[in-house]
């Protein structure tokens, strides 16, 4: 699904991602961990194609196609989607109006999905305007459920979400990632940034990666990695010379 090779990324004059190699197969869910400011969000934004991030070396291939220089919307149209940790507020633009566009006018799907995520009342409100942390997450997941990407990137889907909503969001994300489909037939893939790992209770992640200072320091079983981080912090990852 996604193949990243030897990726180097600069913001301004500073290289922030170094020699990133990542392979995500069809049906796989990968978890990305790492301390604040280590470059996790930058990696997601680079994969999506945002401005201000310059790929100086390497390639990003998606479904076999080199997308390294492709504009954002073409990547989205190829089947990529992203949940933002801090999405912008768009004054005046109603969430429902955007969903009407992205669903291709399928009001029924919009309304059913909004109901599932308890977002009915938000369809008539401007996107993210005055939304609480949990509401922003639900709005993001709602937009993705309408978009139906084959490859989903999630940036801390559980942060700022109360316990009641975490199961709602967790189950919705599981759906997004085809977790209700038998593993043999599962087609959707994901890359999930998490600090707490709570979201892993809803998604069985296949692989984990630890990023520190813009490089991968570890690859392995996500639960094992999380256990180490929880007990010893990221210094253990820095000291570990596994890769």
């Amino acid at each position, binding site marked *: 699904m996604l193949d990243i090779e030897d990726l180097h990324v600069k913001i301004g004059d500073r290289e922030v991602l170094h020699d990133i190699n990542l392979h995500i197969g069809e049906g796989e869910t990968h978890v990305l961990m790492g301390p604040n400011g280590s470059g996790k969000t930058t990696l997601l934004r680079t994969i*999506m194609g*945002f*401005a201000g991030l310059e790929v100086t070396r390497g390639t990003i291939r998606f479904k076999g196609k080199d997308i390294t220089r492709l*504009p*954002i*919307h073409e990547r*989205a*149209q190829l089947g990529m*989607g*992203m949940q*933002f940790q801090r*999405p*912008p507020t*768009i*004054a*005046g*633009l*109603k969430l429902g*109006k*955007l969903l009407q*566009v*992205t669903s291709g006018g399928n009001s029924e799907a919009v309304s059913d999905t909004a109901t599932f995520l308890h977002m009915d009342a938000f369809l008539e409100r*401007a996107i993210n305007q005055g939304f609480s942390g949990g509401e922003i997450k639900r709005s993001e997941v709602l*937009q993705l459920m309408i*978009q139906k990407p084959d490859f989903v990137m999630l940036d801390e889907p559980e942060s700022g979400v109360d316990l009641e909503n975490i199961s709602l969001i967790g189950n919705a994300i599981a759906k997004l990632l085809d977790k209700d489909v038998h593993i043999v037939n599962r087609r959707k893939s994901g890359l999930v940034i998490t600090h707490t790992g709570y979201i892993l209770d809803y998604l069985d992640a296949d692989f984990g990666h630890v990023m520190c200072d813009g490089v991968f320091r570890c690859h392995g079983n996500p639960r094992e990695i999380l256990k180490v981080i929880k007990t010893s912090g990221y210094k253990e990852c820095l000291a570990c010379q596994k890769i």
Partner: protein
Amino acid sequence: MSENIDQMLDLSEKDQERLAQTGLEVDLKNRSGSFFQVDQEIKQVASLEKGIEVLAISEALKKYDWLEEYSWKLVPKDKDQYTRYVAEQPEQNGFVVIARRGSRSVYPLQACLFLARGNVQHVHNIVIAEEGAELHIISGCASASYTKTGSHLGVTEFYIGKDARVTSTMIHNWGEEISVFPRSASVVEENGVFLSNYVCMQPVRKIQMSPVAHLKGKNSVARFSSIVVSTPGSAMDLGSVAHLSAEGASAELLTRAITTGGSIVSRGMIEGQVRSTRGHIECKGLILKDGVIHAIPEIKGDVVDTELSHEAAVGKIARDEIEYLMSRGLSEDEATATIIRGFLDVKIAGLPDVLQKQIDAAIDAAEKSGF
């Protein structure tokens, strides 16, 4: 081509379309009354609902002596060269609308001022809503597709009685060489509500206006909303003024302005003259292509316990907003258009659906032709 226009249906299809864009129903469906003036000729005056009377001003002044008390009282004849010009005309044109005590119009009343042959069109209108009356007016002002030059001078005086509610929605569709100088003022009595909406999404050479609301009655309310796009060569100087002179009075002035190369001066002035009054000015401007948006909000408080505020912002569409929508699969142009549509999407509280739809349609038409 313009020789025999006796009703809106006599206009060419193209011009009917231009009128439809200003919210007018050429066949008068769903209207409580209608007034149609082409240049200086009044073509149609129709009262279609009980309690609401529509008259040509010359007829009205003959029919009702008391109307003199309302004529040129809110807008002084010598306010400026334009009002003087209108006042000096031997024959007054324009309309008078009287909504009788307690009448409630289900449908809006439409007034169409159409400029066909390039010269000066002048009108003097008086709108009176008696105690408890509810009246909705939509004025569509347009020029013929073949009319390239001309001026429109319009004086309108609104009297909103006790507990009355008046909405006035004006949608303009002029030509590139047409200059427009509306001069209007209103007085709002106790518990009265006056909503004034202005939409101009099409080219015009020059438009200059600054309607004034005198909030004289206790708990009276005035809300002015303007949604405008200034195209290259268009110069718009738009403002509104509210004087809060009774306890509990409140005013809100709201503007959404876009320039694609033209200039917009957006003025707003609220004066809190007595205690327990409130006012707010909000002006948001988007500069899509080099043009000018000059926001001049003014607030003046004369006493303790008047609460006045303003917020103004002028800028471009934020890159992160465009990219956010692109990540949902919209192209850059689609994302931009979607954000602009949202920017202009102002829902005016208290406005009947049918009129909100007309405003939305005017914005849709501009969206289709590209910002």
